[in-house]
Every structure is written in structure tokens, then in C-alpha cells.
């Protein structure tokens, strides 16, 4: 039985698509058959982050409307086995996703996949609601910044009231906090909310902390999920995150300022 995970945030620009690409790739690297669905109808971007933008033929809305089947539409990732992308439609109106249509596609994918990752659009309109409606688990991507934290809390409210699990009185969606663009130096200076602050305000389990990193922009420039950059701090932090998502106990890294040794101080690094 496939697990449906929504990657959501309310606020835009916090790293939903970057995280979806990284975590989806990580799950596939661990041997789980994974599909990442772009729910951002009209503003397709997952394809670009995954580096498959020129291989898009059909899209999510085509499948819902029966104009193409899943086999024709799913893009198989060229780097990672077990990984597929279902691109969003670029041209159609935002209300092209119907609950029944999305459910049909998810049910069909569930027969074949271990993980279905739903990359939500920003906001709280129909696209975002559709992305979270069928979820079993939610990864709430949050920046240590007031507007992002407030919007995350808003989304937590939606997960608890507007989802299928809430409406049908099933077990609640399992909520995970993913803190991104974390800068330990600024936290130490008292200029940025700390992990503990955000955890305390949102009171949900911490899944991962991704440090603010140049590797993220480099990765998106080249269309490579940052998790494949295993030398980078962000790549390693995403790998830890995936392992925690799979139930492993992994200590948190990159939470404190790295003390530079004498040699590093002299020669830089």
C-alpha cells in the first residue's frame, strides 16, 4: 500500500519543490518506488528542479481528463532508479483538478508505488487543498521567519480539518516539521528563530533541519536534486531527513556554528 505524503507550507518560496525533489530522490535511492506529483497547475516547476523539463509530453491534467494514460505521462528519472515525476499542467486553469480526478490517479499510482509525494502549490486555494486532501503524512516546510511560521500553523489547521482523514474521522495526518534555510550563525547572534523556538510554537515533530546553503541554488541551476550533492551540507541534511522519514534514528547535524580550526582560519575553507 502506497504512502501519500504532501509537501506543503502555505507560504511560497520556502523550499517545497526543492524539498520534494530531494526527498523523493532520497526515497528512491533507498530502494522505494517513488513518484513525485507537481500540484502547482499553471506554474509547473518540479520538472525544472528535477532537470526533466524537456521530456514533458503529457501532464497531470491530461491524465485526469483521460487524454493520456499514466504510462505515457510519467517521466522516469534518468539518474535514479525507482523514481518518476508526474508534471503539472502549464496552461490550464487552476480548477482543472477535481477531487474525483485526483483520487482516481492516486488510486492507480498506489497500486504500483511505495511513496507518492505531492508537491503542493503555495497558498490555501484549491490546488493546495487538493494536494493535502488525500495525504497520510505531511511534511510542513518552514523557514525560521515569522510569516512562514504563521502560515505553517495555518496549514496545520487545514490538515486537521480539511483533509480526507479529518472528514472521514480516520487517524489524523502525521505531521512533520522540515525547517529549511537555517542559519546557525544568525541563530547564535539572536537574529533568527532557533529550531527549538519553531518546534515550540508549532508543536509538531521535527523531521529535519536544512542549513541555508549555496549548494541548493547550484543544484537547481543544473537541474539536479540537491540530495545528489552528497558532499554538501544541504545534501547530507536531506539524506538524514529521508532516513528519519523511513523511521531511522538519526542525530541532527548542522545546527550549530562550525568552529573553524587554526589552519582553516589561516587558509580559509
Amino acid at each position, binding site marked *: 500500500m502506497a504512502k501519500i505524503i504532501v509537501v506543503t507550507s502555505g507560504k511560497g518560496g520556502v523550499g517545497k519543490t526543492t524539498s520534494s525533489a530531494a526527498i523523493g530522490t532520497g526515497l528512491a535511492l533507498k530502494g522505494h518506488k517513488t513518484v513525485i506529483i507537481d500540484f502547482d497547475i499553471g506554474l509547473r516547476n518540479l520538472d525544472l528542479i528535477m532537470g526533466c523539463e524537456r521530456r514533458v509530453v503529457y501532464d497531470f491534467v491530461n491524465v485526469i481528463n483521460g487524454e493520456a494514460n499514466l504510462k505515457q505521462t510519467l517521466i522516469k528519472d534518468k539518474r535514479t532508479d525507482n523514481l518518476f515525476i508526474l508534471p503539472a499542467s502549464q496552461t490550464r486553469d487552476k480548477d482543472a483538478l477535481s477531487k474525483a480526478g485526483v483520487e482516481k490517479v492516486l488510486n492507480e499510482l498506489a497500486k504500483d508505488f511505495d511513496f507518492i509525494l505531492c508537491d503542493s502549490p503555495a497558498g490555501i486555494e484549491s490546488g493546495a487543498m487538493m494536494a493535502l486532501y488525500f495525504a497520510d503524512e505531511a511534511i510542513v516546510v518552514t523557514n525560521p521567519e515569522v510569516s512562514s511560521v*504563521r502560515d505553517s*500553523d*495555518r496549514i496545520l*489547521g487545514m490538515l486537521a480539518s480539511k483533509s480526507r482523514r479529518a472528514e472521514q474521522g480516520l487517524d489524523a495526518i502525521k505531521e512533520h516539521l522540515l525547517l529549511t534555510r537555517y542559519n546557525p550563525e544568525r*541563530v547564535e547572534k*539572536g537574529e533568527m*528563530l*532557533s529550531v527549538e*523556538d519553531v518546534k515550540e*510554537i508549532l508543536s509538531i515533530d521535527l523531521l529535519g533541519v536544512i542549513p541555508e546553503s549555496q549548494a541548493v541554488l547550484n543544484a537547481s541551476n543544473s537541474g539536479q536534486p540537491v540530495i545528489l550533492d552528497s558532499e554538501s551540507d544541504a545534501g547530507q541534511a536531506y539524506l538524514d531527513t529521508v532516513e528519519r522519514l523511513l523511521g531511522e534514528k538519526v542525530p541532527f547535524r548542522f545546527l550549530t556554528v562550525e568552529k573553524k580550526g587554526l589552519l582553516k582560519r589561516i587558509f580559509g575553507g
Partner: protein
Amino acid sequence: MSLLDYFRSTKKSSANTAKERLQIIVAHERRRRNSPDYLPQLERDILEVIRKYVDISPEDIAVTLEQRDDELSVLELNVTFPDEKR
């Protein structure tokens, strides 16, 4: 860090300010979320009635509906009256 910065740092950090502001607004919005739709209108109506007699602003009034158990819910109305000297 300069000597001046050292003395400045005794001031509350901006992260602390952010945390306090968030705690207040998030708590407020959660109460809203879990309360019936008519509550904001009820709050506005009560505000209007009180304003006929005393000049208060919207932030001086708080209406919460608390579900104690299945049988009992309590409507709590909290109005801060202005200082009489003002």
C-alpha cells in the same frame, strides 16, 4: 564584537521578539480556528454595544468559546476598560 555591541546585546534579541509575537498571534488564530463561524460577528456586535457607553478599541475585547465537555461550553467575554484618568 566591539565594546559597544557588548552593551547593546543586553537588549532583547530580534529572534526573541519574533518568538513572542508569533506565540501570541498563533494562539489567537488557533482559538479562532476552533470556534464557530459566528464568533467574529458576535465580537463585533458586542464591541459596538460597549462603544455606546465606553470608548474601547477592538484589541480591548476578547471573546472565546471554550468547549469544557460534551454538555458544557463556556462563552468568555473579556473587556479591558480604559484607564479613567485618560
